[in-house]
C-alpha cells in the first residue's frame, strides 16, 4: 500500500502554505523586496551571454548614445560597431557614441524589456533592431532576469491569459535569485580581465570593451549548429562582389529591392514588437529595422521582410537591407560559407564585408529629420 503524502493535516497545511507563498511571491514582492534592476543583470556571468557588458552600458556608463544596435545574437554578430562609430565621428566632427547591446536567444520580449532599461538610463538617438524571428516554441531562457511581475506586468495587457501565465511563471522562477540578491549583492563580472572571458574565448572575438559590444568571431563555418560546436578553422577572406553602398535599400520610400510577405509572427512577438515601437516613440528615439541576411536566403534578389513591419513601424520607422544576391554577388556557395559561422550568424569575414556597405545608409538615416 502506498504511503500517504502527508503524515498529518498540519503537515499538509504547511505544504499548502509553502506552495501559496511560492505562487504569490511575484505578485506580492514590490520595490521594497526586490533588489535594484541592476542586480538582476549583475547576477549574470559571461557564460550567460555578454550581460556584464549590457549591465555596464545601461547602469554604469552615462551620456547619450548616437546609435545603439540592440537585440539577440544575429545583430551582435553582424555589425562592426567600432567601424560605424569611427565613420559617424568623422561625419559629425566629434567623438560619436555607438554601441551594441546583444545577448543570446531571439524574441521581442527580451528586446522590449532590456531596451526599456536602456532608455530609462540613457538617451539613444537611433535604435537599430532586427526581426527577432524565432522558433515559435523557443523562449528566451533569461526571462527570469529581465522580467519581474510587479514592475513589468503592465506590458502584458492584451496578451492571451496563457501567455500572461507564462510570464508569471517566469517571475516565480526568478524570485529565488532576486531574494538572494537582496540578502547579499552580486559582484558584477569583470569587463576586462587578464584572461579572455568565456564569451570572448568561446566565440574567438575581440574584447567586448574594444568591439563596443559586437562579436566579430574568428570561427569557420559550423555545419553542426545549433546542436554541436563543430567549427571549421577560420580562414580570413575578403570577398570581391561588386556590392556597393548604393545597393542598400531604405524603406520608405523605396519599395523595389524589398519583398514583404504575409508570413505571420506569433502573437506574443507582435505584441512586444508593438510595445517596443511605442517605447521608442515615447523616448524620441528613431527606430531602424536592419535586415540581416541568413545563409538560406543568399541567392535572393530581394530583401524579404514581413508586411507586419511597414504597418507597425508607421511613418517614423525605417527598414534597411541589401538584397542578398547583391551582397554575395558572384560568390560561390563555398565562398559565401566563409562569411558565416553558422547559417544565421556572420563571422569576422562577414561582419567586415557587411558593415561598410550598410554604414553610409545608417549615417544618412541618422542625419535625416524624423518623419511624423
Amino acid at each position, binding site marked *: 500500500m502506498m504511503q500517504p503524502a502527508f503524515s498529518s*493535516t498540519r503537515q*499538509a497545511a504547511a505544504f499548502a502554505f509553502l506552495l501559496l507563498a511560492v*505562487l504569490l511571491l511575484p505578485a506580492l514582492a514590490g520595490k521594497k523586496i526586490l533588489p535594484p534592476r541592476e542586480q538582476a543583470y549583475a547576477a549574470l*556571468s559571461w557564460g*550567460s551571454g555578454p550581460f556584464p557588458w549590457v549591465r555596464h552600458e545601461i547602469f554604469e556608463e552615462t551620456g547619450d548614445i548616437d546609435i545603439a544596435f540592440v537585440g539577440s545574437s544575429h545583430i551582435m554578430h553582424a555589425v562592426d560597431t567600432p567601424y560605424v562609430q569611427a565613420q559617424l565621428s568623422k561625419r559629425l566632427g566629434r567623438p560619436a557614441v555607438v554601441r551594441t547591446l546583444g545577448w543570446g536567444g531571439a524574441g521581442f520580449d527580451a528586446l522590449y524589456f532590456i531596451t526599456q532599461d536602456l532608455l530609462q538610463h540613457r538617451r539613444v538617438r537611433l535604435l537599430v533592431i532586427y526581426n527577432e524571428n524565432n522558433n515559435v516554441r*523557443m523562449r528566451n531562457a*533569461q526571462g*527570469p532576469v529581465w522580467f519581474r511581475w510587479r514592475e513589468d506586468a503592465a506590458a502584458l495587457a492584451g496578451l492571451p491569459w496563457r501567455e500572461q*501565465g507564462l510570464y508569471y*511563471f517566469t517571475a516565480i522562477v526568478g524570485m529565488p535569485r532576486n531574494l538572494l540578491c537582496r540578502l547579499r549583492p552580486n559582484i558584477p563580472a569583470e569587463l576586462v580581465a587578464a584572461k579572455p572571458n568565456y564569451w570572448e574565448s568561446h566565440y574567438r572575438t575581440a574584447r567586448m570593451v574594444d568591439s563596443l559590444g559586437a562579436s566579430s568571431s574568428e570561427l569557420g563555418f559550423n555545419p553542426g549548429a545549433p546542436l554541436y560546436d563543430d567549427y571549421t578553422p577560420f580562414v580570413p577572406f575578403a570577398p570581391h562582389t561588386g556590392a556597393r553602398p548604393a545597393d542598400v535599400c531604405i524603406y520608405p520610400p523605396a519599395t523595389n529591392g524589398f519583398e514583404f510577405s504575409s508570413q505571420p509572427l506569433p502573437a506574443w512577438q507582435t505584441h512586444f514588437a508593438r510595445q517596443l515601437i511605442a517605447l521608442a516613440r515615447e523616448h524620441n528615439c528613431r527606430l531602424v529595422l536592419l535586415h540581416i541576411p541568413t545563409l538560406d536566403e543568399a541567392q535572393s534578389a530581394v530583401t524579404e521582410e514581413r508586411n507586419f513591419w511597414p504597418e507597425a513601424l508607421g511613418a517614423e520607422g525605417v527598414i534597411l537591407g541589401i538584397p542578398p544576391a547583391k551582397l554575395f554577388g558572384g560568390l560561390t556557395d563555398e565562398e559565401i560559407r566563409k562569411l558565416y559561422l553558422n547559417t544565421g550568424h556572420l563571422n569576422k569575414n562577414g561582419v567586415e564585408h557587411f558593415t561598410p556597405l550598410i554604414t553610409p545608409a545608417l549615417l544618412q538615416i541618422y542625419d535625416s529629420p524624423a518623419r511624423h
Partner: protein
Amino acid sequence: MIPRPAIDKAVYVLVIVLSLIALALVLISPAELLDNKVIYQGF
C-alpha cells in the same frame, strides 16, 4: 466550531488546487525556463 473532518478536507482540497495551479503554470511554460544549467549557470 468547525468540525475537524471539515478542516482536514479543506486543507487537502487546498493542497490539490494549489498543486494543480503550479502544474498548469509549468505546463504552459517552455522548458528553457526550467533548465537550471541555462538559468543559473556561472562561468
